[in-house]
């Protein structure tokens, strides 16, 4: 399954070049003085807010879908000419042969919050087209005139990684020729207050893998990829990146805490690699879920330490320090980061890491992996001699819901 095109909007910007530039330069999109802070005066934290998102205009015929989440979906569909590429495929294959599967954790719940807070008149509010969990898929299909199968996956923070598995199934069953897969999640009060109630929100910039990490920074993002596996499609693809493995698992441990030994994480990564027919020694880079909560990073690093000894260097990093934790959009955001990292041959920095947590170090050392693991503190540009072919992205969610997606650069190796 090939990535034919992609688009992404986050606190770092809109489209590939703004994101790649920020990733290369190590510039964060997180802020302690974002406009959304005015709504949560009692909570001190950093947010990955998209500038001026609320001013995004939906076309008249889609105006009943008006809410922050669908505004971001619209903005992301316009980025890098994504919607035009979809139109070309509709002309080629027919609208009914294009499927659409998207992830979100909270859909347009912000609209309902606004009604409860007296900020939005009930007669200007349409529950079914905003808050309702399936509405994101409906909005995207209407916006693109896509008529194939479509639905929303909502498994908390693994949502928009699991969409790749659905895309594989649809293409394999030949019920579609192309799949639009993606995810959109936007800032809302229930999420910020909910994570705060769980004690998982950091007052400072999030510090994945650091000894003093103490929680997440919440962000928002919307991203889409076009996926297909037909030769004629692949020839015209802009990207040479393939999705070669998707692994899904459950922790079966706790509803909001990950398994301390990372059993579910390990299983998801193993299944993704098994589907690709490779082992951990073939993987060059893992984009961690790396939320910067004490328990997530411990669980994830434990899971990696159980994979096996690595005979060659393995880069790992969390990009949460750039965009924050974009929740239901974290999967698609970081999978697109992996796509661009493979295309442009760089390893994104793990921002805000000052002192690697000795407990994590011990986990890796006991598996004789510590020397092989490399965590770039600054984004690393690769060379012909030092390049990468395989990158894997991890996404784990509440309910112990895990997904790993493995990408491969085409051509050599």
């Amino acid at each position, binding site marked *: 399954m090939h990535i034919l095109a992609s688009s992404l909007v986050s606190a770092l910007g809109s489209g590939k070049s703004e994101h790649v530039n920020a990733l290369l330069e190590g510039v964060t999109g997180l802020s302690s003085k974002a406009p959304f802070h005015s709504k949560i005066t009692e909570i001190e934290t950093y947010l990955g807010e998209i500038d001026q998102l609320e001013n995004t205009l939906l076309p008249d015929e889609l105006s009943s879908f008006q809410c922050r989440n669908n505004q971001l979906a619209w903005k992301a569909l316009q980025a890098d000419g994504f919607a035009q590429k979809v139109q070309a495929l509709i002309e080629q294959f027919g609208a009914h042969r294009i499927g659409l599967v998207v992830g979100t954790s909270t859909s347009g719940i912000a609209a309902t919050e606004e009604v409860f807070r007296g900020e939005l008149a009930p007669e200007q509010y349409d529950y079914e087209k905003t808050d309702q969990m399936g509405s994101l898929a409906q909005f995207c299909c209407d916006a693109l005139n896509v008529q194939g199968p479509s639905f929303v996956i909502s498994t908390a923070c693994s949502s928009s990684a699991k969409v790749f598995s659905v895309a594989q199934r649809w293409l394999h069953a030949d019920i579609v020729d192309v799949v639009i897969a993606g995810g959109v999640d936007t800032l809302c009060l229930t999420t910020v*207050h909910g994570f705060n109630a769980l004690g998982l929100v950091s007052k400072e910039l999030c510090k994945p893998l650091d000894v003093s990490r103490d929680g997440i920074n919440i962000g928002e993002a919307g991203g889409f990829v076009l996926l297909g596996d037909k030769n004629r499609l692949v020839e015209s693809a802009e990207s040479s990146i393939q999705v070669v493995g998707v692994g899904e698992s459950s922790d079966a441990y706790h509803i*909001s805490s990950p398994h301390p030994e990372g059993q579910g994480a390990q299983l998801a990564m193993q299944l993704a690699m098994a589907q690709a027919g490779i082992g951990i020694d073939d993987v060059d880079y893992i984009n961690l879920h790396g939320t910067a909560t004490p328990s997530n990073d411990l669980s994830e690093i434990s899971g990696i330490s159980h994979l096996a000894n690595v005979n060659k260097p393995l880069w790992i990093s969390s990009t949460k320090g750039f965009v924050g934790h974009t929740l239901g959009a974290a999967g698609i955001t970081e999978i697109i980061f992996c796509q661009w990292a493979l295309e442009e041959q760089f390893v994104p920095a793990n921002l805000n890491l000052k002192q690697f947590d000795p407990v994590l170090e011990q986990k890796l050392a006991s598996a004789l992996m510590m020397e092989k693991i490399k965590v770039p503190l600054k984004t690393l540009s690769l060379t012909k001699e030092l390049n990468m072919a395989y990158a894997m992205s991890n996404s784990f969610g509440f309910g112990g819901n895990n997904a790993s997606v493995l990408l491969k650069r085409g051509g050599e190796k």
Partner: protein
Amino acid sequence: MKAQILSVGVTAPGIVNFQDFRQTLQAGEAFDLSLPLEKYSPSFLPSNERRRVTQTIKIALKTAEEALSFFQKAFPNEAENLPVLFVSKDGDPQISAKMCQAVSEDPPLISPIQFHNSVHNAPAGYWMIGQSNQATANAISAGKYAVANGLLETVLQSKSEKKPVLVVIYDLPLDNLMPVDALQKSYVPFAFSMVIDANQVIPSTEFPVLSLSLEAAKEQGSMEEENPYTGVPAAEGYTLLKAIAEHSVKPLKKPIHFSLNQHSVINVSLTNG
């Protein structure tokens, strides 16, 4: 696309389980929608988790448990740790409404339990914990097109994982607090479940084979099958459950249509394999 139905579960006001459903139909009695849902506690959950589950999670778990229990008794040698798919339009309507109300108050207080129970995959998460099952767990929403998308996804997932899959399609009415019209708050809950295997046909089972085909939606919906549970999307499953229950005595004369979206339908027919 063909798939063997291996077990079925159903919960709604006036329907305790699939056996009860079949008996009511056989007796030619009407379903009493005014009855409360049967009391249920998920005994397979550790006590800590059991205390925390909401009404929505209970309906989903009860219906899942019915299909799994029958499956395990009927097919003790079949694969354990089935992948699961939970399908629901709104997730947990009561918790969503309570959280939106909480963030409109001063100070805005959301309880940690409420928050982690609010995720759309909460029933899936509790189910996997209770069953010590580390397989794939999915939670989707296809809006009002729950039945068609749920069945299609189950069959495709069973094929790709080469295992039977447990699907639970459940919906509750929107909460009274919600700023929506009264109709959507007046519906009754409906949940049904199936274990489906797209990899083999088992002629000896008491359930028929499900056969799905996709086609463009026709102008006029031809199915006018009587359904006392009309309302939430999951309740569309009533006609399919009725056809399954009556398959041996009154086989379907024509396929049942379920809308996949505005443009296409899935035709469902039942055969003996």
